[in-house]
């Protein structure tokens, strides 16, 4: 009786409803329920929608992708639309786009952990998986764009019989290190985060094969206080490092451009521009992935509307920063008085060749983003899904405008030429999309797609200082 009275008293002390934070998990169920709920999809039979989507993605990934890849590698870069003066075409556009998609994943899982946003626990793992797979797709493009892919090892500082070394004065060289580091570090972070969840799946396994696989992956995790102690430290350190990567990798991609003496590229704002653009695009992708998955996997209580609302708000913030940067870019182009800069920016929007990408850039990244100001839109899942898709298209257009828009009409009019992608450009892009979604579907089905142990720790039942977590006196209501 006294305990109950205590809880009643605490309730009186609690802040009013409008000041309270939305619960991380709705329904206020126990820890066991959470475990069942979060792993239900990974342990259930493969549903039909998954099989259909997987078949489509796998066709793109295992048929279209290798055909386009091998044809390009065996024949040469000439099969793409890239030609003088547009030497960077869809390959670099898609490279930046994929790196961009990766960044929001790291931002959600790492930066929001450091700022102690508990709601991130429910979507962090999905975001990390998005990062790992999209960096892998991104890394592929420069590797084959070099033309002779079998000489890729020249990019790494490996002692060789020619006695030569890579040239470290070029940002393109830095890019090699940045993208590879990003892939390695985000994979490590992703894997380490899953170790406790592998242990959960090991303990719940019903077949010997499952038990064996997850026993090996869990590496003998028992969840002892000592293990958690070291694990938490390693997790914080990795989060810090991943956060640095969010701001570094795209900056270096931006440096590739801004060190070039080309109107439209030679601007100091580029590193920041690329980081924010990357994050914005990635949030769009997160909305596209999160909204259908939550429905299909029955996770409405876990990935709540409040979480989606927060992602939408972050999308809006990054979108507004991007809008500011567009404005600055145009202003500086005008203010510099440089006729070439003015020419390039004028042609981005009013030129006769690629104006439609400039139009998409304004229509989506500037205008559609403003819809996220409204709570009605942010709570409408279908609208958010469409906005997420549009943002991906808008950001792809932005990269096209930057890459091709500056290259096709440079300083010398005799040099001007147009750029058109070929079927191999398009096929490779479809192939990488297929590979990404194939990997993502496999991840969703066979691995713990939500960080179970993290979500448990973020519930009141997991808080030792909360009455529901067994606090005897006091505690926070």
């Amino acid at each position: 009786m006294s305990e109950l009275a205590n809880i009643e008293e605490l309730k009186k002390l609690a802040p009013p409803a409008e000041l309270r934070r939305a619960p991380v998990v709705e329904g206020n169920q126990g820890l066991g329920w959470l475990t069942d709920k979060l792993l239900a999809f990974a342990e259930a039979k493969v549903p039909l929608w998954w099989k259909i989507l997987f078949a489509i993605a796998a066709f793109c990934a295992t048929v279209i992708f290798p055909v386009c890849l091998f044809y390009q590698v065996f024949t040469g870069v000439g099969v793409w639309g890239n030609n003088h003066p547009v030497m960077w075409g869809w390959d670099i556009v898609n490279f930046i786009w994929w790196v961009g998609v990766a960044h929001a994943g790291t931002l959600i899982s790492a930066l929001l952990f450091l700022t102690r946003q508990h709601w991130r626990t429910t979507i962090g793992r999905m975001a990390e998986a998005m990062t790992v797979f999209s960096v892998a797709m991104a890394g592929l493009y420069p590797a084959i764009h070099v033309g002779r892919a079998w000489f890729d090892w020249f990019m790494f500082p490996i002692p060789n019989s020619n006695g030569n070394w890579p040239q470290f004065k070029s940002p393109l060289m830095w890019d090699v290190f940045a993208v590879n580091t990003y892939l390695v570090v985000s994979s490590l972070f992703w894997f380490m985060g899953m170790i406790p969840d592998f242990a959960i799946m090991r303990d719940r396994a019903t077949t010997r094969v499952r038990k064996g696989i997850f026993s090996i992956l869990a590496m003998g995790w028992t969840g002892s206080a000592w293990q958690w102690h070291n694990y938490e430290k390693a997790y914080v350190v990795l989060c810090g490092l991943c956060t640095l990567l969010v701001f570094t990798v795209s900056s270096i991609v931006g440096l590739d451009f801004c060190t070039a003496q080309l109107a439209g590229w030679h601007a100091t704002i580029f590193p920041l521009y690329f980081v924010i653009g990357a994050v914005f695009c990635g949030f769009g992708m997160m909305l596209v992935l999160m909204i259908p998955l939550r429905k299909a996997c029955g996770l409405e209580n876990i990935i709540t509307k409040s979480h989606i609302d927060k992602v939408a708000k972050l999308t809006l913030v990054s979108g507004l920063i991007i809008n500011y940067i567009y404005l600055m870019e145009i202003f500086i182009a005008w203010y510099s008085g440089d006729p070439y800069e003015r020419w390039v920016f004028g042609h981005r929007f009013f030129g006769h060749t690629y104006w439609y990408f400039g139009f998409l850039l304004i229509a989506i990244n500037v205008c559609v983003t403003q819809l996220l100001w409204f709570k009605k839109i942010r709570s409408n899942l279908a609208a958010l899904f469409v906005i997420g898709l549009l943002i991906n298209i808008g950001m792809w257009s932005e990269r096209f405008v930057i890459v091709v828009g500056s290259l096709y009409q440079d300083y010398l009019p005799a040099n001007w030429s147009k750029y058109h992608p070929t079927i191999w450009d398009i096929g490779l892009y479809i192939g990488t999309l297929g590979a990404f979604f194939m990997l993502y579907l496999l991840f969703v089905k066979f691995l713990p797609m939500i960080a179970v142990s993290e979500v448990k720790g973020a519930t009141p039942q997991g808080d030792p200082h909360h009455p529901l977590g067994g606090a005897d006196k006091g505690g926070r209501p």
Partner: protein
Amino acid sequence: MSEKVYGLMAEFDSPGAVLRAAEQVRSQGYRHWDVFTPFPIHGLDKVMGYRNSLVGWVSLAGGAFMFLNVVGLIWFANAFDYPLIVGGKPMFSAPMTFVPAYIMLIMGAAVGALIGMIALNQFPRLHHPLLFKKRFEGATRDKFIIVIGAKDEKFCATQTRQLLEAIGGAHVEIVEDQE
């Protein structure tokens, strides 16, 4: 029972309960004991008497090692072994080394953090006496388990059992050492 005894395990239902129980076990003077939880519990580190984890230092060592090595490598590659004038820039300078060295610092520190965590936790360990206990499976679900090791000087099959029951532990069981 012919097998050796590894320890005694007791089950608790909430993080608050296990935290209080752990305080009791500690105040009784036990040394070889541990708490197994499905997620990290705030405040348990203090009760267990753990100091700052060494993982951070391993990570720092990995990062520093990589940073210095990459700076050295760039000097060796671009200024000593294969000097090449590019755009009239110096053969070796801070701005050109910083970015790759910094990126590789992150790589080294990340690998260091993971290796540090794995080494300090003595992973991979594919066998553990506790993993044979059916009830221990709760430790990754919704139960909080305290195990007092038989290695402890104060360990006594009856008295330790009494203690675990007195502090609220349910299902007190003997864990066999299956070596």
